[in-house]
């Protein structure tokens, strides 16, 4: 099982049972097809997306596992952060349909061929997709909700220490000066 992957792709050995390999958006479908036919990695167990905002890319992770559930293979595919759609795997794996619906709602990635991209968790959401790094959740909260009053008498400990030191120092000088 490992031999096929070794020669055809440059494999990264993360742990004895976890491997990773990079693939571009165009090669994704036929790499998946090759892997599922030639090796026993035939189950998609997770579809992840990491937002590397400073490198201007989304890194999609297709987590494959074999029929014996003993090894995991991570297919990592980097795409631009907007206006790029991915091919949908809903026909290859039935479970991919919901995962793609979640990523579509949370990151705004389009998946061609997946008709059920309606809302997954948020109802009537009219802001940018919330899991993108540029979405600031605290700003959204301060705009839409307000907190309970009664906590305004919070003091910043550092100023207090400085104030007390200044007061202590001035107290020491005034008796000498007076």
């Amino acid at each position: 099982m490992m031999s096929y992957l070794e020669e055809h792709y440059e494999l990264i050995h993360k742990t004895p049972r976890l491997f990773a390999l990079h693939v571009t958006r165009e090669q994704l479908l036929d790499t998946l097809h090759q892997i599922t036919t030639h090796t026993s990695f035939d189950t998609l167990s997770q579809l992840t997306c990491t937002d590397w905002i400073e490198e201007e890319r989304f890194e999609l992770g297709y987590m494959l596992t074999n029929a014996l559930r003993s090894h995991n293979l991570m297919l990592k595919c980097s795409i631009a952060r907007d206006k790029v759609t991915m091919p949908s795997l809903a026909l290859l794996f039935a479970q991919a349909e919901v995962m793609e619906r979640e990523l579509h709602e949370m990151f705004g990635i389009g998946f061609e061929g997946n008709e059920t991209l309606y809302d997954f968790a948020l109802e009537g959401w009219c802001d940018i997709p919330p899991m993108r790094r540029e979405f600031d959740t605290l700003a959204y909260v301060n705009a839409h909700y307000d907190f309970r009053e009664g906590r305004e008498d919070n003091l910043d400990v550092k100023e207090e220490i400085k104030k007390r030191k200044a007061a202590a120092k001035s107290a020491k000088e005034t008796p000498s000066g007076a």
Partner: protein
Amino acid sequence: MDEGFIPYQQSLEDEEQSIKSTQSVIEQAIAWFRAHSMFVLAYGTGCGAIEMPPTFTSRYDIERLGVVGVATPRQADILIVSGYCSPKTLKRVIRSYEQMSEPKYIIGLGSCTINGGMYWDSYNTIKKLDDFLPVDMYVNGCMPRPEALIEGFVKLQEKIRANSSEAGYIQYRTRYAHYRANQERLFGTQVQPRYEENFAGMNL
């Protein structure tokens, strides 16, 4: 602010004493029956729903106090909002609360209903439950123990027996504009059926 919690007990007793003198015997009897037979709506809105099975089954057995879970809002008196509440859940909670027949009460479990709890900076949870619904009793904890939940019911029973005039359901009618404004701020204007049509005729 002295230490710990202000002793809640005697503040309720003297309130009860002052009200008891004005209530007639029948009103006290009705309030007693209302306090000793509470139907809770079977709706686990948040993660506090995990502490309701031990409370309603044989370990803590809240049926000793006359509390029973019922299936539909029509038959329920009490709605337990157990923990955090996302706007999607809040719409269903408000709809269920408005379907319940009066007198109805709300118990807010955990710190998420008071000031946002540990999801205070989450974009999808409400921070103060009493912006949107009149809460009659808060139970403290994350997640409150079954004993704390029973303590909440015991204190709610005292409050029901005190038959105080600013109970939750009366406030929902009198200050409905305040609640409605907060709800519309979150959901937009045309979502909910306007609750006040069916109490338009009543004397508030």
